[in-house]
């Protein structure tokens, strides 16, 4: 399969943007300038990138605690994202949500949700809305192997199946819930046996291969738009950081396992493929890198130069007026 050059550039740029954004966030966190729970998406960039490339602003997604990548891939403004992570008044949620709860309803990003598995039922509602609107729009929900252990996962599969909802389930299987291996926690073994039990079409792809994710998601989204009911895409991957950025939290995963996955870096792999095929030159890549770094720097500047919220701003937005 060969990607069009423009598509390849966009996929590469999005992946690199997520990577450089997350690297900057981690640097700022470990320098003591950020606080709270920040779940890094580094290592998993190909999934959000490959899926969201097929979605428009009219297609809605629901994300989870590790949500920065989904936001960027869906087209969110990095300045407002970074400002939110910094707890600033100019952030997407005016500093009320933080890293775990970034949303942009204007681009169909219905929010990152901090309770494992809870985004799945919410996404069934977004998919039902798309079905009622009947314009061929779809919804997608991102979740991990950990969410597959929750009852809400099964309820959402069942609901999507009986109502034939245009909902793409994107399972980012990074093999661990914090430090607990999915091998231990999931009696079903292969995750796709669960959607199969609900008569939902499914496929497993190597989630560090953006081209594979892009192709599989493309077929799935096209089927959803034709009204063929829900689809389940399991993307196998690995996270590079601990469950969340932390000096205290232990990482109990085998170090050699992490090292082996780092060698399968989704960004480096795609970069090598593009160079080898002559789609992009080293100079092209450098130019993209420069542009991405400038955007990340701008987001950082915007965030640190933005005002903090006033303490009494805490009283606003409890209710919509």
């Amino acid at each position, binding site marked *: 399969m060969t990607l069009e050059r423009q598509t390849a550039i966009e996929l590469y740029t999005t992946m690199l943007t997520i990577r450089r954004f997350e690297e900057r966030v981690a640097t700022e966190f470990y320098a003591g300038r950020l606080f709270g729970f920040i779940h890094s998406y580094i290592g998993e960039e190909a999934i959000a990138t490959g899926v969201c490339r097929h979605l428009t602003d009219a297609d*809605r997604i*629901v994300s989870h605690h590790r949500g920065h990548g989904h936001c960027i891939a869906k087209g969110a403004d990095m300045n407002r994202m970074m400002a939110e992570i910094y707890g600033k008044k100019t*952030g*997407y*949620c*005016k*500093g*009320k*949500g933080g890293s775990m*709860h970034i*949303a*942009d*309803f204007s681009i169909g990003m*219905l*929010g990152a*949700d901090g*309770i494992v598995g*809870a985004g*799945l*039922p*919410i*996404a*069934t*509602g*977004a*998919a*039902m*809305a*798309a079905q*009622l609107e009947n314009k061929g729009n779809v*919804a997608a929900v991102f979740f991990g192997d950990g969410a597959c252990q929750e*009852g*809400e996962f099964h*309820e*959402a599969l*069942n*609901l999507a199946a*009986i*109502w034939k909802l245009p909902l793409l389930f994107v399972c980012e299987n990074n093999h661990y819930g914090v430090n607990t291996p999915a091998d231990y926690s999931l009696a079903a073994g292969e995750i796709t046996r669960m959607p199969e039990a609900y008569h939902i079409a499914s496929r497993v792809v190597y989630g560090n291969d953006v081209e594979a994710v892009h192709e599989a998601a493309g077929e799935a989204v096209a089927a959803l738009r034709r009204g063929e009911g829900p689809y389940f895409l399991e993307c196998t991957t690995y996270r590079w950081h601990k469950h969340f950025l932390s000096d205290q939290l232990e990482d109990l995963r085998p170090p050699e396992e992490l090292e082996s996955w780092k060698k399968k870096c989704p960004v480096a792999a795609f970069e090598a493929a593009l160079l080898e095929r002559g789609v992009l030159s080293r100079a092209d890549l450098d130019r993209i890198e420069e542009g991405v770094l400038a955007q990340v720097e701008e987001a950082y500047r915007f965030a640190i130069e933005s005002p903090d919220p006033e303490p009494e701003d805490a009283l*606003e*937005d*409890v*209710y*919509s*007026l």
Partner: protein
Amino acid sequence: MREITYDQAIMEAIQEEFRRDPRTVHLSTDLDAELTREFGSDRIRVTPIAENSFVGASIGLAGSGYRTVANIRMATFGFVAMDQLMNHAAKITYMFGGQASFPVLYRMTVGAGICGAAEHSVSPYSMYMNVPGLKIILPTTPYDAKGLVKTALRDKNPVVAFEHVGLGCLEGEVPEDEYFIPFGRADIKREGTDVTVVALAKMVHEATTAAEEVAKEGISVEVVDPRTLVPLDGETILTSVKKTGRLVVVDEACQTCGAAAEIVALVTADKAAFSGLKCAPNRVCGLDVPIPFSPPMERYAVPDRAKIVEAVRDVMAGA
């Protein structure tokens, strides 16, 4: 004026709003034949028995521009949906900085008196009061039920309607013309000068009959029905207590940390109302036990007219 039941009044409110706004949907585990006939099975969806997920779906629908009526049936089933109700529905507007509105009406029945035992007879509204982001209505008459549900279906926020199981068949006057009852406006169900009785849900009716009984002894009771717990009309309650100088709060929910405690605190924390009190406020609440099945025990566990009469006499004697 025509009379219809409490349940019919709520149904009318839903039908009127569903006719007006095509972006409304209904989710429930049971088929509602009347709604389905008029609005079709696309908008009136029967859900699997999965309260947490259809409550979650209502949030996704809201975030996508649809208003949902989610009928959870009994408040005990609401506990099954606590993740979506408490972690998401209540907080999502705030957590996302007010970017989007989440208009949903969650309906559930509360109350004892049906021999339903512990898992079908709860009145957990104070638990919901403790979670900012939800509005809570507690209609007690067909008139209030229709007007409050109409308002709920125009509100931009998640609203929880707690409907007492003992009131569904209650008949009362309901105008044919459209009307709305604003949230946060208590209703004085009976005027009086000696004792303020703030009563919740079905206890409004018990309090009214108790007021009639003590009237024969020359005690004049004012019965205040808050009608909505969030927002709560503290002003009307305080005005009434400042007039009477005596307060009894009646609620069939368990006493500990209940809405009655909040209402007593509201009054005693108000300097003017507190200094005007002629005796300590009194609560007549459900006992702190799960609701038992057998009728003699069930009746014993919740307040009734006799217990309210006794409490009113007590605060009069305490003067």
